C-alpha cells in the first residue's frame, strides 16, 4: 500500500524501489563522503529519509538535517545540535560535549538538562560556530560506532551565504571549514552525505572555489525509474486505491510523462483520480489529464521556465539557450551533441549552457543525446516557444 503523494517527501512503505541507488550509496559510504546532486522533485529527500531509517541495517546511526532555512553558519550548526538533541544518544552526547572545550557555550538549565548540562546554547555562542561544529563532530565520533549525517539542501544554504556576501568570501570560509571538518582524522567515524538540487559544483566552480568540495564523491546517477519499475510503481499505487489501471493506461502515462520520476507518476495518477472519480481510467483519460496539464490554466507554470532563462542568463546567453532548447525539442529523442555544436559551435559557451540547462532541470543527457527532462515541458516548448 502506497499513498498518492504529490510534493511532500515520502517515508516508510511509500518509498518505492531505488534498490540499485541505495546499494551503490551504502557501498560508497564505506570510504567516502557523498554529495548527491539531482534536480528538484526527483526524490532526494525521500531517499535520505530512507537511508536514515535503514542505517541500522548497515551498522550506522543516522540523522537527517535540512539546512534550507538556515541563514547563517551558526544556524547551520544549531540545526546539527537540534537533531542530536532529538536523538536517542542525546544523553551520552551531552556528557561528551560537556567535557569538550565548548562546554561554556551551553546554558546551565534544568529544562533540557542532562547531568546538569543542557544543550541549549548561550546567547554569545553564535560567534563561535566553528568550534561548536567541530566539537559536535568530535563528540559524535567519540560516542563510538559509525555516524551518518544526512544534510539536505546544502546548495541553498551556500547560496544564502553568497547573497549575504556577494564577494563569496563568507561562503568560501564556511566551505573550507566544512571540508576541513570532514577530513579530520579524529572525526573518521562520522560520514557526511550532502544533497541539494541546485548544482553546488557549478556554483562553487563559478565562484572559483571548487576545491572546497573536491573531497566529496559527487553522485549524480539518481534519476527516473526505468519503465518496468514505473509500471510496478503504478500497479502498487492503483492497488492502494482499488483502481484498475490497465497496462495500456500505464503505457500511456509513461509515454506522456517521459521522465519517469515518482513525482511525475504520482502527479499523473493524482490528476487521473480527480478526473475519473472512482472509475477505471482509460488511455484517453491520460490524454485529457495531459491536456489539462498543458492548458492555459497551467501556462503560468511553464511560462516560468522560459522567463527564468532571461532572468538568470541575460543577453545574449538566453537567446543561445532558447536556440539549444528549440533544437532539442524537435525530436522526442532529443538532439545529439553534434547537432547542438552545429547550432552554437564547439566552444566554452556550449559546454556552459548545457551545464546550466542540465543542472537547472531543463534537459538530461542520455547516451550522448540531450533531451528534455519532462515531456510536458517539451510539448509546452514546442507549442508556445519554438
Amino acid at each position, binding site marked *: 500500500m502506497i499513498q*498518492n503523494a504529490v510534493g511532500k517527501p515520502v517515508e516508510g512503505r511509500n518509498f518505492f524501489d531505488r534498490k540499485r541507488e541505495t546499494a551503490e550509496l551504502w557501498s560508497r559510504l564505506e570510504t567516502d563522503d557523498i554529495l548527491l546532486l539531482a534536480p*528538484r*522533485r526527483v526524490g532526494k529527500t525521500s531517499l535520505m529519509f530512507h537511508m536514515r531509517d535503514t542505517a541500522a541495517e548497515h551498522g550506522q546511526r543516522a540523522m537527517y538535517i*535540512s539546512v*534550507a532555512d538556515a541563514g547563517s553558519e551558526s544556524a547551520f550548526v544549531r540545526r546539527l545540535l537540534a537533531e542530536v538533541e532529538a536523538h536517542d544518544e542525546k544523553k551520552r552526547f551531552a556528557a561528551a560535549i560537556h567535557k569538550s572545550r565548548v562546554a561554556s557555550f551551553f546554558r546551565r538549565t534544568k529544562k533540557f538538562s542532562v547531568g546538569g548540562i543542557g544543550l541549549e546554547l548561550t546567547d554569545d555562542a553564535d560567534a563561535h560556530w566553528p568550534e561548536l561544529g567541530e566539537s559536535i563532530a568530535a563528540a559524535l565520533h567519540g560516542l563510538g560506532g559509525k555516524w551518518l549525517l544526512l544534510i539536505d539542501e546544502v546548495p541553498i544554504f551556500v547560496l544564502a551565504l553568497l547573497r549575504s556576501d556577494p564577494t563569496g568570501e563568507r561562503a568560501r570560509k564556511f566551505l573550507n571549514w566544512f571540508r576541513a571538518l570532514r577530513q579530520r582524522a579524529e572525526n573518521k567515524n562520522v560520514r557526511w552525505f550532502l544533497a541539494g538540487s541546485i548544482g553546488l559544483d557549478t556554483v562553487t566552480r563559478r565562484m572559483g572555489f571548487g576545491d572546497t568540495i573536491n573531497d566529496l564523491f559527487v553522485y549524480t546517477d539518481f534519476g527516473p525509474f526505468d519503465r518496468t519499475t514505473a509500471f510496478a510503481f503504478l500497479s502498487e499505487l492503483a492497488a492502494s486505491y482499488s483502481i484498475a489501471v490497465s497496462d495500456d493506461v500505464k503505457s*500511456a502515462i509513461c*509515454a506522456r510523462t517521459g521522465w519517469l520520476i515518482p513525482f511525475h507518476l504520482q502527479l499523473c495518477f493524482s490528476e487521473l483520480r480527480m478526473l475519473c472519480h472512482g472509475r477505471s481510467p482509460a488511455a484517453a483519460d491520460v490524454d485529457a489529464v495531459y491536456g489539462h496539464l498543458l492548458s492555459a490554466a497551467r*501556462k*503560468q507554470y511553464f511560462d516560468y521556465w522560459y522567463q527564468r532563462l532571461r532572468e538568470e542568463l541575460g543577453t545574449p546567453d538566453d537567446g543561445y539557450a532558447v536556440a539549444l532548447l528549440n533544437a532539442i525539442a524537435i525530436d522526442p529523442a532529443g538532439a545529439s551533441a553534434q547537432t547542438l555544436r552545429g547550432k552554437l559551435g564547439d566552444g566554452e559557451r556550449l559546454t556552459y549552457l548545457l551545464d546550466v540547462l542540465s543542472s537547472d532541470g531543463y534537459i538530461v543527457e542520455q547516451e550522448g543525446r540531450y533531451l528534455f527532462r519532462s515531456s510536458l515541458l517539451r510539448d509546452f516548448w514546442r507549442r508556445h516557444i519554438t
Partner: protein
Amino acid sequence: MTSIFDRRLNGVAIYNPDLLSKEELVAQFVARRRDFEQMTTDLARPRFGQHQLIVGHRGMGKTTLLRRIRYAVEDDPKLAKTWMPLTFPEEQYNVSRLSDFYVNCIDALSDALEQAGRRDEAARLDAAVDELPSGNEEKRAADALAVLLGAADRMKKRLLLLVDNFDLIIERLSKDEQAHWALRELLSREHRLLLIAASPVVIGSTVTYGAPFYDFLQSRSLGGLTFEETHEVLSTLAKELKQPGVLAILEHDPARIRTLHVLAGGNPRTIVLLFGVLAQGADGDVRGDLERLLDQCTPLYKSRFEAMPAQAQQVVDALAIHWDPISAGELAETLHLDVNTISSQLNRLAQQGVVDKVEYDPETKTGFQIAERFFNIWYLMRASRRVRRRLIWFVEFLKLFYGIEQLLDRARDLAKASPRADLRHVELCLAIAEALPMHRPEQVALESRAIRAMLENASLQKQIYVVLDLEGADASLKPIVDRQQWAAELRRAVLTARTTAAVANEELYDLISGSPTGTREEKLKTAQTLDQMSEELLNKFVEGLQHERVLLASWLGDRLADAVRRAFRDGHVETLFDVDGLMAAAVTYGDPALEVVCDAGRFTSSELFAIYERCHDAFIAEILAMRHIYSDNIAASDIVRTALVNHPNRPRLRALGACLNIEHRAGEAIERELEILAKESPNDRSIWMLLGYYYHDRQQWSDAVRALKEATDLFPDDALLHYLLAESLFHDSRMDEARMAIQHAINRDPNDVDNWELLSRICGVTKDYDEAVVAARRCLAFASENIRATGILAVALIATNRVEEAIEPALVVAQSADMPVEVRAFMLGVYSTGGNPDSALPILEQLVRSGGLSDQYLEYVMRTAGILAHMGYGERTLQCIERAGKIDEFRPIYEALRIHVSGKRSQLRRLSPELRQPVEAILNGWNGGSKETSKKPKPRRRRR
C-alpha cells in the same frame, strides 16, 4: 442550545459563507460536490499526508468548500477521531512573521475548542499565547509551534489547517525567504499538521523552480461551473428554499438560464445571486434578469474598482471595455502608455487575481482579460451608451441562439428515444420537425421516426393517409414513407422466403438489407426471387455478401461498419454517398461517426476529434491522423497512440504509428514494419500510400520510387500514387520518368490541381515553357480561388516572358469562382434567386439592415453568412454587415466571419470567453451544415 452561529440565515449567503448555519451550508452545497467527496475520502485514509492547494477566482467556491470540509470532519466520527479542523478568518492580515501564523493556528484551535465546549483547554491555550516571547522571532516561532503541537498531542488528533487566501500569507512572509523554507520544512516532516489551502491566484512560490514550495502542494483548480452544474445548483437551491417559480423557469426556459450562465462565466457566487433574482420574479426575461443581477453586484464591484490605484483603474477600464483578450503591447498602444509600465501593471493585477493571463493568438504572446467575467459584464453595462448597446445585443443574440439550440436538443432527444407507437408521439415528432429552422438532419430523422412508428403499428398504419396529406402539404414526406415501406417489405420478403441457403433467413436479411451496394429496388427484387435461386447460386450470392461485409469492417472497423449497415437496413440511406441519409441516421442512432463516413472533409479536426472521443472508432482516428500526419505530428501521434490501445491489430493504424514513430524506433525498424504491413495488406491502398509518404517525407527518393512503383503496379488506377511517384522521380532528377508518371496521374484524374501543378514544375525544369504554361492554365482552371494556383500560373507565364498575360487569367479565374452545387441548391431554396452569391449579398445586406432579431431570421442570416463564407464571399459578407451598421447586433456572426475569412481558428483566443462560445458554435455549424454532396466533379485539393 443552538449556537448563535448555527442559527439559520433563511436565505443564501453570497459573499460570506460563514453567515450560513451549518445545516444551510450543507444543504445548499452542490457546486463542488465532486471535489469535496474526493478530499474527504482522502482524509479518511490512514496516515494521509498530502498538502493541498485549491486555486480559483473570487466567488468560485473556495471558502464554501473549506467550510464544507470542516463540517464533514466534525460530523463523521471516523474523521473526527483523527482530525481537528481549524478554520481561519478569510484574510489573515495580521501575519508578518512565521510565528504570527503559528499563533493564528493556536487561536483557531482555541476557537474550535471553545465551540466544542472545552473552555478550560481553550483558556490554557490563550494563556500560553500570552506567554510567548515577543522579541526573538526564532524563539517565538519555536515556542508557538511547541504549544500548537503539544495541544495536538494532548488531544491525540492531527490538525487540519483549512487556510483561505494562502497567497496572502505567503506574500506577507516573502520578505524572509527563510520563513518560507522553514514552513516548508515543517510541513514536510510534521505529520501532525495537514494543510488544505485556498488561493485566488496561482502562487508564484509553488511554480518557481528554485522557490521553497515548488511542486510541493497538490493543486486543484476550481473552474467555472458547466451549464449542467449551474442547472443543478439552481435546482437544489429552489428545492431547498421552496421556490417553485425558479424550478418552472429551469424546466421551461433553459435558454434563459443558458444565456445567464454564459454571462456569469459559470461563477458559483454569481449563480447564487442569479437564483435570488429569479426567485424575486419569474415573469422577467434575460435582460431584466441581467439588469437586476448587475444591480445587486454594484456596491461590491464599485467599491472594489474604486479601491484600485489610478493607473490600475485605467488598465482595468481599458481591459473591460475591450472585453476580448488583449496583449500587453496592444493595450499599451490603446492607452498611449509605455509597454513596460503596462506589463508591470498587468502582472500586478494578475497577481491580485483581478486579471487573468490567457492563451492568445499568436501562441507566443500572452493575452490578458478581466478574471471575474461578470465584473466585465457589469463594467460594460455601466460604460458609454455605445458600449452598453454592444452588450445588450449580445444578450439578445445569446437568448435566440440558445433558443434554437434548445429546440435542436429536444429534436435530438426525441429522435434517439425509444419509438412509441401512439399518434401523439407521431404528431409531436412531426410538429418539432416542422418547427426546426431550415433543413436539418434532425428534421429528416424525426420525420423518419414518425413514419416508421406509424408503419410498424397496424392501427396507425391505417391512418397514415388520414394523418398525412402526401399528395399536398406533406408531399416532402413521400420519399420517407416509400423508403420505410420498402424496408418493411424487404424484411417481410426475406424472412418469409423458402431458401436452400446455408445461412438462416435472419442472417440473409442482415446481409441483403445492410449491403452498401445495390439500389432498393434491386434488393427487393432479389429478395422476392430468393426462392427461385439454385443452391449453388444462392451460396455464391451469400459468400459475396459476406465478403463485402468483411471488407466494410476492415475499412471502417466493426462498430462503425455495423452502424452503416444498420442505416442501410433501416432505409435511411441507399448509397454510401447519401449524406442526408447518413446524417439522419447519425441523429437517430446518436452516432456522429456516421456523418464522417461519406464526407470526412466537411468536418474540422476538432469536430472529428469530438466525434472520436465519443465513439473511439479506428476509422475516425485514421482520418484524423492522416489529416495531421505532416501538419501536427504531436496531435497525430496522440490520436494513433490512443486508437492503438483499442485496435492494436489494425494494420492501417499500425502503419500510421510507424510513420509517426510513436515508439521512438530507428528508421530501419520503421521502414521494415511499413514494408511488411504493406506486403501483408495488398488491398489497402492507404498503407502503400503511407509507405510512399514515409520515404517521400524523408526525401529518400530512390526508396520512395521503388515503393511507389510497386504501389502503382498494385493500384494502377490510383492517381495519387502516380502523383507521389512522379514527385519522387522529380526530386530524384529523373525528369523523363517523372513526366510519364504525372501523365498517368493526369489521365486518371484530370481534375486534380496538384497533378497539373507538378507537370508545370517538371516542364519548367526541362525548359518546356509552353507546356508549363498550358499545365499552369489547367491548374488554375480548377483552382481559381486558390492563391497558390494563381501564383503557379504567374510563375509559368513569367518564365515565358508573358508578364501581362499572368494577371488576366488569374482575374478571370477569380471572378468565375466555382460554386459547389449543394450550396447553390440551398441558396435557390432560400432566395429563389438562382443561387448567385452576387445577388445574394445585396439581399443579405438589406435583411441585416432592416431586420430585427427573431429566431428564424437569425438562423437565416447565420446560415446564409456561412454559405457565403464557404463560397469565398466571407469578406463581402463582412462588409455587408459593416455597411448595414449592424456589427453589434450580429457580433458573433461577424466574428465568425472574420475568423473564417482569416482561416485562423486560433483567432478565437482573441475573443472574450462569453463571445467565444457562440462564435465557436457558429463556426462548427458552418463546417457541418452543408447538406448534399456535389453531383458534378469538383476540383480537389489534397491535404498534405
